[in-house]
């Protein structure tokens, strides 16, 4: 066995060595092409160094060479599990820069889409988390429901993964005539399925033993690192961009912001982060139901500008993506393409705490912790 570093213990009789283990980029549970360099003492992790960039596609630089509407499909490819959220954030930033007021119907549809996307994204997070811990069946149960959400997106805009749906000032298509009925049907079917996943996985004794008290993220560490989204709420802070910095029409809906309570262990452990996602899906269902009820009539494309040439200036807008606070910083030099686009990717920030979380746990727990912070490499590398 090749050893990279040698640790001499005080007693010369027993010599122990640290082992450096490369986890990924080709590994079943690094959630994409992430490479983790683990320093192990036996099976105990003493250091984790993430190596990123395997999925780097120059998103930010690329934007500078494209016109503003052309960027929309590229935002899809960042967090490919939540493209609607990405487009939503970009559209909001651009509308703020252009000073456009979008019609009421557009706002409602955007919120419905973003919340459906949150459900589908959290379903993937839950399913893959189960698979990380060895329960493969909940993974497919989650994917059945995700499939239904994707079908809803498909009837809306024709695409199932990368939608190019939320445009600057409007939407690419209006809703399908069946959309409202089908969405309500989906929510009706989804609630019992969510309960089933809970029975199968969330409250399973082995699952709790694996996740509770593992990878505890204290509140101050979370804040210092700038962690947001379910990971921050898992640590017990009621902080959600939808509430703290309201955008679109979120102030019109009645919903709760679930936080981690340390039900089976310490507040901020992996189980809390996981369970916050479960509860958030229920809240998303509530928002969708309210939005569908209030959905006004109107045209979804009336506010789309013919030619986008924003004034010189800069703008920062953020939205609550399934993975956290997604921010867009756009500098305009007055031409048809941006001078600079900078994205604050929530996964990138969340991944930084990995070393803090994994120290002193076992190799198996690294997988648990990595799954619980739910990163998407497309967004980290961009």
């Amino acid at each position, binding site marked *: *066995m090749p050893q990279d570093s040698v640790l001499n213990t005080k007693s010369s009789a027993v010599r122990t060595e640290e082992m450096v283990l490369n986890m990924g980029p080709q590994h079943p549970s690094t959630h994409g092409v992430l490479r983790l360099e683990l320093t192990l003492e036996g099976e105990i992790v003493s250091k984790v160094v993430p190596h990123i960039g395997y999925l780097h596609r120059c998103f930010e630089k690329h934007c500078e060479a494209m016109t503003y509407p052309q960027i929309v499909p590229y935002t899809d490819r960042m967090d490919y599990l939540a493209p609607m959220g990405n487009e939503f954030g970009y559209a909001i930033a651009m509308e703020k820069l252009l000073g456009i007021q979008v019609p009421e119907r557009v706002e409602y549809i955007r919120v419905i889409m973003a919340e459906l996307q949150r459900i589908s994204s959290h379903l993937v997070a839950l399913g893959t988390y189960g698979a990380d811990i060895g329960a493969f069946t909940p993974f497919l149960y989650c994917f*059945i429901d995700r499939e239904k959400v994707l079908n809803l997106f498909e009837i809306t805009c024709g695409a199932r993964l990368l939608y190019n749906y939320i445009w600057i000032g409007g939407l690419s298509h209006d809703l399908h005539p069946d959309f409202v009925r089908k969405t309500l049907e989906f929510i009706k079917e989804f609630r019992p399925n969510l309960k089933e996943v809970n029975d199968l996985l969330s409250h399973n004794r082995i699952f709790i033993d694996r996740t509770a008290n593992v990878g505890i993220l204290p509140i101050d560490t979370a804040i210092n690192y700038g962690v947001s989204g379910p990971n921050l709420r898992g640590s017990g802070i009621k902080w959600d961009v939808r509430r703290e910095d309201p955008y679109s029409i979120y102030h019109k809906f009645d919903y709760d912001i679930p936080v981690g309570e340390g039900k089976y262990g310490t507040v901020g452990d992996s189980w809390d982060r996981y369970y916050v996602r479960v509860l958030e899906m229920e809240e998303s269902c509530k928002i969708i139901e309210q939005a569908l009820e209030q959905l006004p009539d109107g045209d979804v494309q009336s506010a789309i500008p013919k030619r986008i040439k924003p004034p010189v200036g800069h703008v920062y807008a953020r939205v609550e993506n399934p993975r956290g606070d997604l921010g867009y910083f756009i500098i305009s030099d007055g031409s048809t393409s941006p001078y600079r686009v900078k994205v604050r990717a929530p996964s990138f920030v969340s991944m930084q705490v990995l070393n803090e979380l994994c120290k002193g746990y076992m190799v198996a727990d690294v997988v648990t912790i990595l799954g619980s912070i739910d990163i998407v490499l497309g967004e980290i590398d961009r």
Partner: protein
Amino acid sequence: MMFDFLVDLTGSPILAGTIQSLLPLFLFILPFALFAVYLERKVSAHMQDRLGPMRTGWHGWIQTVADILKLIQKEDIVATDNDKFLFNLAPIVVFVGSYAAFAAIPFSSMFIGTEMDLGIFYIVAVTGLVVAGILMAGWASNNKYSLLGSMRSVAQIISYEIPTILVMLSIVMISGTMSLHTLSEQQTGYAWNWYIFGGPGSELSKFLFIPSMVVGFVIIYISTLAEVNRTPFDIPEAESELVSGYHTEYSGMKFAMFFLAEYANMFAVSAIVVALFLGGYQSPIGYLGDLIGAKWMIPIEQFSWFTIKGVFFVFVQMWLRWTLPRLRVDQLMAVSWKYLIPIAFVNLIIIGLITLL
């Protein structure tokens, strides 16, 4: 009996012995592995709301054959830094370990590989060989994941052999025999003569045994599950952590050997549980052969009963695998050392006291 018949047939004890030792392989292990892989796929598929293999034959029944053909065609990769000798030897050792266990398994009153008095002892000993093979595979692969996997595997199998043996001992104490054949013969009659219901006879001690026997049965089933590395104890090959543990580096037929050994092992441990607790090859409801006076039918019926019971427990293993998450390696050790072994010990003492009374 089988052996005498074969000696008569071939005229040479060596030839007869060879045929008899190969019979379980060709008659049972290979067809069973084919069937079990198919069953695993179908069971997992239906549990996950899928169909599973559907294209290869009716409901995909020749899927495993197609898989094997694929594995045969695969390149046999041996990396330059592998320890060639151990790397090639390991799959054979693992397979031999699980195959040898079949020698002492009583399939029916007429068909048992070798009728040895120390059957239980022998099985415990030869399945220990699997550990050596796994350790070899992990070490020779020159891969950190394989090494971690094999280390865990060895720790796990050795830890779980202790509760298994303790429960086996309690049965030996009651029955006074270590031969699985004799043990199965003792449980003749109907289902209430099985050891899980306190064993044959109708005196008071039988009824006193029942709670201890049920506890013993649960312990031995859990620990055999761990011994064959099935979920929730599939830590050595924990896919999400160790890719596939000790056989990560293996391809083609060498991988198939590990695979075959795993499925053979699954049946072997189920068969042991069945032989110890559930009457072995004995029918729970009497024999049709007795009823219609055709004595020759009885061994065939016994073989069917044994296979049905064994396959049922294999099915339960699959059921658990596709339902439960995986334990962590330290939790796994805790289950064995903190719970199973003390309970098995207390159980052993209780059974000892009842036997003395």
